């Protein structure tokens, strides 16, 4: 920091942040792929999952546009993140996600019907049958990082070979919750992976407004934990980084921070209009890096994918998604008494009158307030 150059200035510490990428924008391997991807066919399940995510995403938006779903946050453009993370985790790991990580939830066994239920405004969507210990979608930005620390502490205390994986966005890295969490996780060497999906935007606020840090991965240095930046549109790089981090965590080496650089190709949510604040050229340019085409190119080039397989896949995805949507739409609303009965383990006697009044009114009048 000083311009003088006294010999007194000695170096207390040096650090380095690495960047990981295997497939370039056109799907060409820029280097030999890692072991898990040595056989191109091994990447087919990644591709299929990513395409299913995109179908689901499109359907969710369509449902919202037709008044059949609440506000929805699209995952368009981050399918490589979701597949890369989702396939790396074990069933009994614990997943803590944001509203934009439905793709990972799908791979963990949350059904699309359950996801749509949640977006449709029904808490039962968070009572999913698959990964019972996974956390519900977290809306309050970065607050789930603190829960991840507690989960990882419990895992470590019990000496289990499980890992907590916590997703956040670039915007979330500005919040104290995030820093307190990575700092504590490293201090206790906890089995947790913090994963930043840097999609360049936090609603209308660009990455550059959030922080002067050259990379978000370097925030790990503040905590004294390893950090790495990866190409978030390259599923191979994402998967490899997460596998490494999970392995580290599982063998007691503590937490890792991963930053995946990608781009939010859609509006922030269906309630947002991104054209208000970002130029169309930027979005058009970002489409050139998107993850699905890149992987398709690689697989086609490797001879394990072709047009007819693509068409069959799209048909399959469409059928699955339509069925999930229908199942969602066919689900009757939750009974209003759940608002009381699921509040405490035992519904308090003191609230019996409030409960009765609410139920009576629900039957007699339903909604009669404006808005």
């Amino acid at each position, binding site marked *: 920091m000083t311009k003088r150059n006294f010999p007194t200035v000695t170096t207390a510490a040096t650090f380095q942040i690495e960047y990981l990428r295997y497939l370039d924008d056109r799907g060409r391997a820029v280097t030999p792929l890692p072991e898990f991807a040595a056989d191109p066919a091994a990447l087919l399940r990644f591709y299929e999952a990513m395409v299913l995510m995109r179908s689901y995403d499109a359907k969710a938006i369509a449902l919202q546009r037709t008044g059949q779903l609440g506000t929805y946050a699209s995952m368009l453009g981050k399918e490589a993140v979701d597949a890369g993370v989702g396939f790396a985790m074990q069933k009994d790991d614990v997943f803590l996600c944001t509203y934009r990580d439905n793709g990972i939830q799908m791979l963990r066994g949350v059904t699309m019907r359950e996801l749509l239920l949640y977006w449709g405004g029904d808490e039962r969507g968070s009572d999913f049958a698959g990964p019972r210990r996974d956390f519900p979608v977290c809306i309050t930005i*970065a607050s789930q990082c603190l829960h991840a620390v507690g989960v990882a502490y419990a895992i470590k205390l019990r000496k289990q070979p499980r890992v907590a994986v916590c997703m956040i966005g670039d915007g979330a890295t500005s919040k104290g919750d995030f820093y307190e969490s990575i700092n504590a996780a490293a201090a206790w060497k906890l089995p947790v992976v913090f994963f930043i999906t840097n999609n360049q935007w936090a609603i209308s606020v660009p990455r550059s407004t959030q922080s002067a840090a050259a990379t978000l991965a370097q925030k790990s240095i503040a905590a004294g934990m390893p950090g790495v930046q990866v190409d978030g549109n390259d599923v191979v790089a994402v998967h490899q980084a997460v596998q490494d981090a999970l392995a580290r965590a599982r063998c007691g080496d503590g937490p890792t921070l991963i930053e995946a650089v990608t781009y939010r190709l859609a509006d922030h949510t269906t309630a947002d209009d991104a054209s208000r604040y970002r130029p169309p050229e930027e979005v058009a340019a970002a489409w050139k890096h998107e993850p699905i085409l890149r992987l398709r190119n690689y697989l086609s080039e490797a001879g394990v994918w072709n047009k007819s397989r693509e068409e069959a896949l799209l048909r399959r995805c469409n059928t699955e998604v339509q069925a999930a949507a229908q199942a969602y739409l066919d689900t009757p609303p939750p009974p209003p008494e759940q608002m009381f009965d699921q509040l405490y383990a035992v519904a308090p006697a003191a609230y019996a009158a409030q409960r009765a009044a609410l139920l009576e009114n629900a039957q007699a009048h339903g909604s009669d307030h*404006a808005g």
Partner: protein
Amino acid sequence: MAQITLVEAVNLALARAMADDPEVIVLGEDVGRDGGVFRATLGLLEKFGPARVLDTPLAENLIAGMSIGMAAEGLKPVCEIQFSGFSYATIDQIINHASRMRHRTRGRLTCPMVLRTPCGAGIHPPEHHSESPDAMFAHIPGIRVVYPSSPRRAYGLLLAAIRDPDPVVFLEPTRLYRLFKEEVIDDGVALPLDSCFTLREGTDVTLVTWGAMVYETLQVADELSAQGVSCEVIDVATLKIMDMDTILASVARTGRCVIITEAPRHCSVASEIAASLADEGLLTLLAPVARVTAPDIIVPLPRLEQNYLPGRAQIHAAIRKTLEFA
């Protein structure tokens, strides 16, 4: 003299305050180019530039805390917390610092800041977007809590809040943001803080409310008027420092009081008003003081929202019961 919505009135007041006083700064998440997720700050960036209209990093604690620092240096920050569900993270700064900067320095440093946040349920949003923290803020000594219920009051009270030399938490009823329009004259005239607004005079029962529930309460008063029941409707407007005198005087005339809020009941602002009536107004009461509130439960996701928010039926029922009391 335009008919405008409540959120447009907020915008108008902000623009007026910024034009009048170069010390007024607007800050928050997405308040710049985007104009705020509800468009309350629309156009301010273009008019007043990025130094005075600033998108902050995503951190509510930062937004509140840096506003305190700005205010101590003599600026007049008006910060926006995107939804009141994210305002809980500001309570630490508001209670530990904003509220007591003047007191603990004996007036040497002060805190003329405004913290604006959309508030309340009814717009079918995701989780945490329907909260009503009015009672939590109103409990804090050393601040004011203001909650307008119409475009005109939003305009006049926000100007007053910004000009006030002490910290003000300004809650905006999301559900009313675009529900109706009202003529608002952009004359820079503030409305008084610490004062109730009697929106309708009446003789049979006093209806006390604030925020979005003013809307349904006025509707009910209309409906009852057709049936020959005369309701006085009071918009409390400033929840702290509260004008209890107006409420006591009204109840002294009507003898009956129903308090309406969409916040959960326990330790609510409605409770405060009822408690004052139980003390200072007891002799004037001809019937129990009724509170129409949300139940003491979590705001549900949209599919059950209509069963959560108190509506006209509950207000009607409470008034009927109060009037029938002999």
